[in-house]
């Protein structure tokens, strides 16, 4: 190896990218050639100076958020009626639990930024243990990201397993909603009443279903039902609330549960989606 080559590879030696086999050759040359040794030292010095003095810094928060905003604007231009970031998740086919957990976490952040419908303004069912009131309130909590599904899946039927393991003591009805992109579920207990929460995403629409055992709904003291609803459920198993225009909620009853569906959709749309029994 001559001086020209040695100096050419001085950088490689420092950067640890010396081609195989050249190491010994270079060392042999450096051992006997002072100027080339100097070259290596000088190059190393330059690298060290840069490394020590010019640090990597994280992207400033305001710059990062401005870029995210501009990307979102770009996205909305392509999707003029984009309802929320949430929607961008739907194409994901969630199969693994790890991914599902990730999605749930992501959902939280995305839902927080989602516009919350003024559900709390609904005054028709203001009694706090009214089942319709509770369903609306829960739907708002879901949309606000305060309430999170414990599991999500693209195969709604698989929520059956989840609820069976949740020890709810009533059979949860999992409506087969057509064209459902994914769904999520969670179980809770409050004031001795076990509750199932189901969440469905269909295109850009959301459907939330709140379920309690029929004993709790019809005869319990913790949950109340409008009288008209009680009658209709007993008669036909279905109830929609015609007296309040702002209240597009659908109730139905199975052998073990009373279910309440709240949706971003119109009542008629939602009714059409629910399978008739």
């Amino acid at each position: 190896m001559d001086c020209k080559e040695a100096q050419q590879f001085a950088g490689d030696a420092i950067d640890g990218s010396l081609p195989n086999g050249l190491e010994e050759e270079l060392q042999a040359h450096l051992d006997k050639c002072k100027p080339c040794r100097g070259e290596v030292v000088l190059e190393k010095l330059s690298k060290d100076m840069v490394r020590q003095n010019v640090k990597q810094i994280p992207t400033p928060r305001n710059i990062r958020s401005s870029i995210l905003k501009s990307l979102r604007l770009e996205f909305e231009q392509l999707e003029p009626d984009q309802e929320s970031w949430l929607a961008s998740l739907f194409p994901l086919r969630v199969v693994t639990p790890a991914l599902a957990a990730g999605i749930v976490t992501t959902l939280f952040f995305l839902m927080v930024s989602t516009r919350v419908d003024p559900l709390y303004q609904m005054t028709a069912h203001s009694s706090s243990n009214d089942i319709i009131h509770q369903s609306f309130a829960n739907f708002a909590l879901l949309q606000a990201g305060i309430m999170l599904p414990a599991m999500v899946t693209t195969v709604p039927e698989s929520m059956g397993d989840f609820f069976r393991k949740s020890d709810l003591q009533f059979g949860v009805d999992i409506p087969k909603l057509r064209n459902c992109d994914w769904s999520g579920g969670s179980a809770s207990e409050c004031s001795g009443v076990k509750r199932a929460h189901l969440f469905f995403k269909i295109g850009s629409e959301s459907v939330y279903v709140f379920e309690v055992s029929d004993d709790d709904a019809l005869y319990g003291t913790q949950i109340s039902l409008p009288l008209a609803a009680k009658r209709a459920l007993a008669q036909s198993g279905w109830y929609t609330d015609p007296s309040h225009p702002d209240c597009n909620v659908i109730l139905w009853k199975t052998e073990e549960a009373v279910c309440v569906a709240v949706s971003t959709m119109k009542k008629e749309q939602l009714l059409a989606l629910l399978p008739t029994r």
Partner: protein
Amino acid sequence: MTPVVQPVVSRSTKKKHTEFEAEALPHMDVLYNFALRTTGNQDDAHDLLQETYLKAYRFWDKYEKGTNIRAWLFRIMKNSYINRYRKETKEPDKVDYEDIENFYNTIRAESTDPNDLQKQLYGNLLGDEVTKALQGLPDDFRTVVILCDIEGLTYEEIAEFVECPIGTVRSRLHRGRKLLQAELIEYAKQQGMIKDD
């Protein structure tokens, strides 16, 4: 609640958006640092970074899955930078390499330990001066120095980033570092840290 009337939303667009976010956003810091070192100020770095991401978003279909996304983003940034600032990228011919050599010759007898040398030469040099000197390098040289010495990329990666053969990367790096030394020595002299004989 008011009913929401939705047009048919294309799922492919949503998919694209999700994919883009997952793939491209994790590289923001690397790109930002490069933009910052290249433009030398936060505002221009912001503009450059934003332009890069918007272009990448628009041309996401052109990105070949499984290839080096960082390199792809970087090339978009590099092109944006060139278009935006239209800087000359040729090597300056005024640098006095001899000056560096001579200088080195006068001190090498005393020490060959780079740490000692650094203390001796630039003991009082501030980080700002190094940043400034780096920024003063011609684009092509600064680019490889940043990618190698700050971002820690391998020669192969750098070659992919700048779309040049490895030999070119090697020589630009070598010369870039020399130019940087020249700048620093010049500065040290001005500050009286080194005697100018």
